[in-house]
């Protein structure tokens, strides 16, 4: 019964996509809303039913695989079109359909004035379908299929305003980087097929420890290549550069795809493949280190951004860094916990930012904002909740999830201690840049020359309610896991995370992470207040300090330049060079030469054709004579 429900959950968003895109002409908006929102919402209800059914079963009995048909069978490899329903995928389904539905609801109002209303919801439906396929697939092949299709959905939605050259460029960049990630995943799948002959989760995880071995080159290679995919999708160094540019898409897209769901797919994949990562200690360490570096780097870049969505984008990169770090250190459930709370508070922050942007007629620069507290009451309060949550102030959700990651890091050996300290420091940075945003948008004076609109207008109910719901979730979701008290989430995920190492943070470690984290965050908030609220002129007076470093931050540590110089431009030059030399000269020269030789030969042989019958007769006689001589000489 839950198998059917699971297929329905997967099919409903696809159905909504088809029902919208196949409608001839522009459908009525009411239809678009009903289909675009209704079907994913039903999907959420069904996911909840599946969750309830699984909850009623024993922990060992919560995994089901449902096969639709055998997709391909070739030699020893057999791939089924199959779904796996287990605690991990159900958690993802709930978040994807739940947060997804809220954001679709929000979009019905946000996108109301846009030209391609129908296309937007069709593409959102396609995204939800792909994301669900990604999290529900029962083998690595369909994981990769979902992986690629969310990349396509993300491409379409980033480039939603396709007449804007910057949006087109951003969508292309996102797509190409994600294809690099896909290739990493595909190569990992090649190795799995070569070593194990299968891609089914169950079979791979059962066979891998025995067949591939602990810490062998093959195991490390698989883990690293899978992480290439994760790094591209989850915007980790050095494949992170597409995510800030992806903010060219409409704000709900940023909230859904580039904050709450798709970009965390990398975390999901690592948690899903925990068996493989536990076989690869070096790769896992590398994953954790990359996560920590990303976390620190993105947090610093967020300091100097002026675009409200780009600040949030960098903060997303940074927060995913936490999750990746946790997963790399073996604290899988902690990573998933942060994924859950992050989905709530980051979606909330983006949707709140969307309200602000909407109210100011698509103005995104925080320089043109300020003092919005009195105009946008709901946004102010909900954003406050979101900022407190991400800054890890108790009792908001981020406090529990982030401190769990840091406490677990402390428990995970020497490397973990170092990375835990990085996480702690970055927590302070997070609090600073988030409250920089918060204070400059809602407090302080109005911008010089006033807002871009006469009067910032408050949003309607379709935009308000989802934000309020998310704010409530962001406020309380942390109580799912309270250290030393209860941990239902960890217990729930246990059947899917079979290989997790036994990490037990001591009481001291938990206390350090909690008190230290909170103290740092409060200090950072105070500092932000001192800079941006207490004396608004201070910011401008301090503009000259650290100019060199700020320039580096503005250039985002020059990753884009490096890519351009190392891969893109040489490729173009090589292509042009080959076109000019090998292609024009060699490759196309061969057929030209052959054709020319044939023409010349014809021109020469033409001379033999005199038109005189007697020449031909003479030639015949000569030929016969020569043949005769040969015959006599040879036969004798």
């Amino acid at each position, binding site marked *: 019964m839950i198998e059917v429900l699971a297929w329905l959950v997967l099919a409903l968003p696809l159905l909504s996509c088809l029902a919208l*895109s196949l409608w001839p002409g522009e459908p009525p908006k009411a239809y678009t809303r009903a289909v675009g929102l209704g079907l994913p919402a039903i999907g959420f209800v069904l996911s909840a039913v599946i969750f309830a059914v699984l909850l009623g079963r024993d922990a060992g009995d919560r995994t089901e695989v449902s096969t639709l*048909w*055998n*997709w*391909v*069978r*070739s*030699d020893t*490899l057999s791939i089924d*079109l199959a779904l796996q329903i287990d605690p991990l995928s159900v958690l993802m389904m709930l978040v994807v359909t739940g947060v997804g539905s809220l954001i679709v609801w929000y979009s019905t109002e946000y996108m109301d004035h846009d030209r391609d209303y129908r*296309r937007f919801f069709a593409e959102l439906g396609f995204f939800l379908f792909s994301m669900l396929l990604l999290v529900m697939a029962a083998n690595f*092949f369909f994981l*990769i*299929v*979902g*992986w*690629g*299709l969310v*990349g*396509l959905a993300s491409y*379409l939605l980033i*480039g939603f305003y*396709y*007449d804007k*050259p910057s949006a*087109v460029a951003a*969508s*292309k960049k996102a*797509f*190409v980087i994600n*294809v*690099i990630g*896909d*290739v990493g995943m*595909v*190569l990992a*799948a*090649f*190795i799995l*097929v*070569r070593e194990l002959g299968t891609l089914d989760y169950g079979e791979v995880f059962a066979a891998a420890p025995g067949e591939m071995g602990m810490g062998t080159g093959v195991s490390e290679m698989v883990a690293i290549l899978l992480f290439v995919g994760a790094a591209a999708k989850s915007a980790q160094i050095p494949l992170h550069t597409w995510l800030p540019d992806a903010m060219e898409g409409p704000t709900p897209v940023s909230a859904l795809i580039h904050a709450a769901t798709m970009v965390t797919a990398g975390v999901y994949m690592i948690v899903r493949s925990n068996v493989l990562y536990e076989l690869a200690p070096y790769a896992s360490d590398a994953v954790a280190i990359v996560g920590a570096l990303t976390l620190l780097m993105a947090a610093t870049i967020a300091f100097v951004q002026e675009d409200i969505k780009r600040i949030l984008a960098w903060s997303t990169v940074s927060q995913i860094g936490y999750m990746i770090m946790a997963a790399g250190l073996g604290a899988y459930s902690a990573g998933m916990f942060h994924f859950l709370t992050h989905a709530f508070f980051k979606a909330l922050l983006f949707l709140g930012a969307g309200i602000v942007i909407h109210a100011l007629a698509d103005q995104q620069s925080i320089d043109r904002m300020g003092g919005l507290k009195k105009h946008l009451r709901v946004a102010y309060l909900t954003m406050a909740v979101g900022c407190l949550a991400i800054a890890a102030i108790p009792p908001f959700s981020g406090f529990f999830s982030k401190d769990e990651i840091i406490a677990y890091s402390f428990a995970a050996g020497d490397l973990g201690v170092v990375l835990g300290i990085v996480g702690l420091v970055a927590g302070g940075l997070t609090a600073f840049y988030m409250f920089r945003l918060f204070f400059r948008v809602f407090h302080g004076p109005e911008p010089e020359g006033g807002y871009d609109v006469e009067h910032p207008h408050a949003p309607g109910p379709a935009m308000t309610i989802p934000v309020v719901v998310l704010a409530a979730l962001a406020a309380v979701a942390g109580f799912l896991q309270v250290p030393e008290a209860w941990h239902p989430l960890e217990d729930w995920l246990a059947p899917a995370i079979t290989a997790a190492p036994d990490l037990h943070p001591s009481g001291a470690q938990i206390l350090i992470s909690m008190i230290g984290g909170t103290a740092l965050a409060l200090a950072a908030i105070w500092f932000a207040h001192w800079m941006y609220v207490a004396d608004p002129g201070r910011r401008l007076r301090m503009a000259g300090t650290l100019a060199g470093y700020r320039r580096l931050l503005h250039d985002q540590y020059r990753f884009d330049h490096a890519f351009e110089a190392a891969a893109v431009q040489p*490729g*173009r030059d*090589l*292509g*042009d060079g*080959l*076109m000019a030399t*090998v*292609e024009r000269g*060699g*490759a*196309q*020269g*061969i*057929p*030209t030469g*052959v*054709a020319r030789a*044939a023409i010349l030969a014809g021109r020469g042989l033409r001379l033999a054709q005199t038109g005189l019958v007697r020449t031909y007769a003479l030639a015949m006689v000569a030929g016969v004579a020569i043949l005769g001589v040969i015959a006599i000489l040879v036969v004798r």
Partner: protein
Amino acid sequence: MPWVSAIVLIPLFGALSMLFVPSGGFVQARIHALLAAVLTAAFTAYVVVDFDRGEGGLQHIDHLDWVESIGLSWDVGVDGISLWMIALTAGLFLLGIAVACWRLPECGRAYLALLLLAQAGLMGLFAAGDLVLFYVFWETMLIPFYFLIGVWGNEDRRAAVVRFVVYTMAGSLLMLVAILGTAFTARSITGQFTFLIRDLEGIPFSTAQSVWLFLGFAIAFAIKLPLFPFHGWLPRVYAAGPILVTALLAAVMSKAGAYGFMRVGVPLFPEGADIMAVTIGLLALAGIVYGSLLAWRAPTMRLLVAYSSIAHLGFIAMAIVAFDLQASQGAMLQMVNHGIVVAAAFMVVGIINRAAPSDRLDSIGGLAFGAPRLAAVFLIVAMASLAIPGSNSFAGEFLLLTGVFRHHPWLAALATLGIIYAAVYMLRLYQSSMNGPAHGGRGKDAEMRAVDYLMLAPLVLAMLVIALWPRGIVGATTNSLERSISPAQVAADRPADQIRVRIAPNPPPAALPLPGDPLPEVPVEEVPQP
């Protein structure tokens, strides 16, 4: 009922019947052409449905001795390798002829007749079970394409088509020599003079014989495929032909080279193929990277698709010489996929050309405003072409590269560069024409019309079906491909558990001369004394 002969002959008769259509009888010409195409497709459908998937050899064989004394015969049939090529040809030519009938160019009778002749040539090539017949059809199909491009192409057509025909002919002359060489060498070993491919399987050629004969065939196939660096004819021809002809040429005729490798080159000369495998694999890899880079920098839309085609066929060539069932099945699937996708891509380019006749990528942009439906179709085609996971091409490339990876990990790993580049150049094609500020032409001119749906809707549908159930195609090829590659697997010293079929040597080992034995005597016909 000679189904396969009918599939080959119906288009031929259709082409000949145009002679009896009075000039100006365009309705009649259309009826003749459509009837021939529909009948061929129907017969093909019957053969596909009736195909026995458990059988590896030729089925539906029609054998008719022609010149018995020199071993010539009309011998056609289908197996798992030719089945899908025939189906692809039947389907694409049905659509192509339908489109041609809808929008008939000048000299319509000749145009339709030549299309049908081209179809007959291709069908004969794919169905031929006899090397001489194979050669005859190999050359036959050139002639109609020569005229189709030379008469109806653009201003560069003459130069392009002369290069094309002379170059491919030069290659196929080598093949003719190799065919004769094969038959005579085989007679010196078995004492039997035959051109039948199935009788030539398993003949123990010496290493040198195997290599030289393989090379003779391989160069002809490599030019047709085309394998880097034999691709020089391709860009100009694809750019010069009328778009429908270019689409059919790229979709079906380029498969003849790959098909030749699978059908003749690898199974008949396993040792030669094994010795040349690494070279061909590296050339294929070079072709993938080279085609991708040039597609990235190509100035016009047609050239971009043309170079992308070189890259895509590189994958197929690489898989064929991996001698792995999975790789071969992937290659087979990819041959079908590429046929569908590249035909669709060229048709889309043709539609865009309505608004941007210069064909230059920078001459037009923002068409999605006026042509949203074209944008949607084009997106699907572009995504299928760059093999996004979930597309039909991804199914093919995944299988193919997994197979190659088993034996040549680095080759497969480097080939994935082609997947990344594909994203770059296909998005360049898509975005520069569809997205950005509108300029250079009216989008409305490029919106899908009924005639465009006629071709593109079935192609897109086929892409979706294959993406959802590739097993439908892959499953039918298993036994034939096992037969085709197993001698090469033996030659390559693959582990015994990977080799699924052993072809019985022909003739059986007992009849073979041991080294040092005198050659078996050629049977002499007794002449009755007066």
